[in-house]
């Protein structure tokens, strides 16, 4: 703010103007300082970040499309309305045209309608899988972190048991875990959600525990201990809230991964087996068979997956920056 004034040295600007502007600036600064909570400040920084705005715009569009899809689709995504016009075996496809913006798929269904409804499934899978991974992972990690923080031989033992279990999960490649779960439960949308979510558990668990351990060495923990605050209260009221920042950021980033992994699983055939229900990953798998004749059929879902994942990644990175206390002014 000060540099702004220094940036335009005197000359044309009168002295009174300058004073007025100074007063205005300092008033603005004061209202900044009044601005309540840390989260609100982080949000303020977020709003000024072009990365966050881009990410939020993409996610916003994605969410609106997903929510409104059933009401705005021009055609039934499952109906083979133009079945006769498409002959995949003879490389006859229909590209974009006035009534079908994205053309027709290999069975003569409207590709645009399928993309819209597919967004809904992707969002559902992404959000539920992330929630599952986040809650189970944060529970395990929080329990382990709290067990260490509360101390005692039993606390450390509990921590060891939990974390070795988590290490075991981490040792298996996440896609392998996902495939195994999908194999056990049989192909369905729920399978994809569970599989993707479970694969995220160890990441959240390790992150929260590590963050809590780091915070438990902070000066304010020593200061609170020196004032006799109970350990339970220190762990839950001081250490835990300070440790959540990185976990929240990770959750946003995980949404991107979850959408990609869900697409990968349904591409591999573990998704909803009903061909009538559109799903970006399954659409990609179908399109693969006709890559030579109709490459655009693969391009639509692929680009949609990439853009959505990019949106969540941009917002996640921007949140990481705005929540980082080191960058706080």
């Amino acid at each position, binding site marked *: 703010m000060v540099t702004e004034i220094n940036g335009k040295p005197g000359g044309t600007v009168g002295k009174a103007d300058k004073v007025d502007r100074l007063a205005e600036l300092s008033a603005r600064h004061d209202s900044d300082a009044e601005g309540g*909570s840390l989260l609100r400040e982080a949000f303020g920084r977020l709003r000024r970040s072009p990365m966050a705005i881009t990410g939020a715009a993409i996610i916003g569009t994605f969410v609106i499309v997903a929510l409104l899809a059933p009401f705005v689709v021009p055609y039934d995504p499952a109906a083979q309305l133009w079945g006769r016009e498409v002959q995949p075996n003879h490389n006859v496809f229909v590209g974009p045209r006035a009534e079908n913006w994205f053309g027709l798929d290999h069975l003569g269904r409207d590709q645009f309608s399928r993309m819209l409804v597919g967004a809904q499934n992707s969002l559902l899978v992404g959000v539920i899988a992330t929630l599952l991974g986040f809650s189970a992972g944060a529970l395990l990690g929080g329990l382990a972190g709290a067990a260490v923080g509360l101390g005692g031989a039993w606390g450390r033992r509990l921590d060891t048991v939990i974390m070795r279990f988590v290490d075991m999960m981490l040792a298996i490649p996440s896609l392998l875990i996902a495939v195994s779960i999908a194999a056990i439960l049989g192909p369905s949308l729920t399978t994809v959600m569970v599989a993707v979510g479970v694969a995220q558990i160890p990441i959240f668990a390790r992150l929260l525990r590590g963050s809590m351990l780091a915070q438990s060495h902070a*000066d304010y923990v020593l*200061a609170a*201990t*020196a*004032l*006799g605050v109970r350990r339970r209260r220190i762990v839950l009221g*001081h250490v835990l809230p300070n440790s959540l920042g990185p976990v929240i950021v990770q959750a946003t980033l995980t949404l991107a991964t979850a959408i990609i992994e869900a697409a990968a699983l349904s591409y591999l055939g573990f998704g909803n087996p009903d061909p009538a229900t559109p799903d970006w990953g399954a659409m990609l798998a179908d399109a693969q068979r006709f890559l030579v004749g109709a490459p655009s059929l693969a391009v639509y879902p692929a680009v949609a997956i990439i853009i959505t994942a990019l949106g969540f990644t941009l917002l996640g990175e921007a949140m990481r920056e705005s929540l980082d206390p080191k960058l706080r002014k």
Partner: protein
Amino acid sequence: MPLLAVDNLSVTFTAQGKRPVRAVDGVSFSLAEGSVAGLVGESGCGKSVSSLALLGLLPRRGVRVGGTATFDGTDLLRLPPKRMREIRGSELAMIFQDPLSSLNPVVPIGRQITETLARHRRMRGSAARKRAAELLERVGIPDPAARLRDYPHQLSGGMRQRALIAMAVACAPRLLIADEPTTALDVTIQAQILDLLGELVRSEGTALLLITHDLGVVAGLCDTVTVLYAGRVIESAPRHELFAAPRHPYTVGLLDSVPRLDAEQGQPLRPVRGSVTDAIDWSDGCAFAPRCDHYTMACLTGAPELTSVGGDRDGHHHRCVHPIHPTPEPSAARAAGEGSVR
């Protein structure tokens, strides 16, 4: 009968496969109700470790604590952990060096104060908030009711330290330990914080153990001073006595290394040579000998004992083979200062 009598306190750090390190070695001092004792020394002399040992805040593994610390008839060093947690914050409280990192960044300061009240006084809700506002007002924070909702980073350094002091005195402790309370602050703010601490001691009758490396801070506030070097007491005396007639060359060196306004222009500051890492083991002789201008072979034959200056100079002890005699020594006389020489 003093409120706190520390006798022969020792702290040894033992790490597996390493030689045990004795950070504090036979330190004794006492502190009466409503008085201020200073614990002075360079970094690494054991002053912070001593205070953490008193509050039982050192890690239990790899640390051995010996001696006694009698506080109001009970030995703090042998208190069961549960009882220790009860008297921390209510009978004893501590203020730390860096007020920003000692406050939880995501919790409003009001809640950090009421937390202590809830723990020790069972005070909750609006009563606790009211009391917290009173405490903030007491430590000189303007508009206290509004400040309760502020987060630590919204306050200035001095305000933060005031808030920390408010937290510490919330339950009217009988002993307050302040570990370098002014080191992280501007000089002008330092003076305000010291005034506040002094005023709290006088009005509430709290005893204050002030840990510092700054003799200026000591001069302003302390009744008695204990100077530590390499874990041992090398000199202890009432404040005026210490400043007027320091006996140990290290104390003299510390006094000489303080910049003075009345020094002649161009006169260089005289720092104490070397650093605390030059110290030799007390079992080999005087740990300060390698940095001392006055040492002889006699200094290197076993550790010197803490001896009383004697006479009417009651309570003045030093640990030196060749103590400095006050009158003929120019540096000591200069340190006595207060216009008597110039």
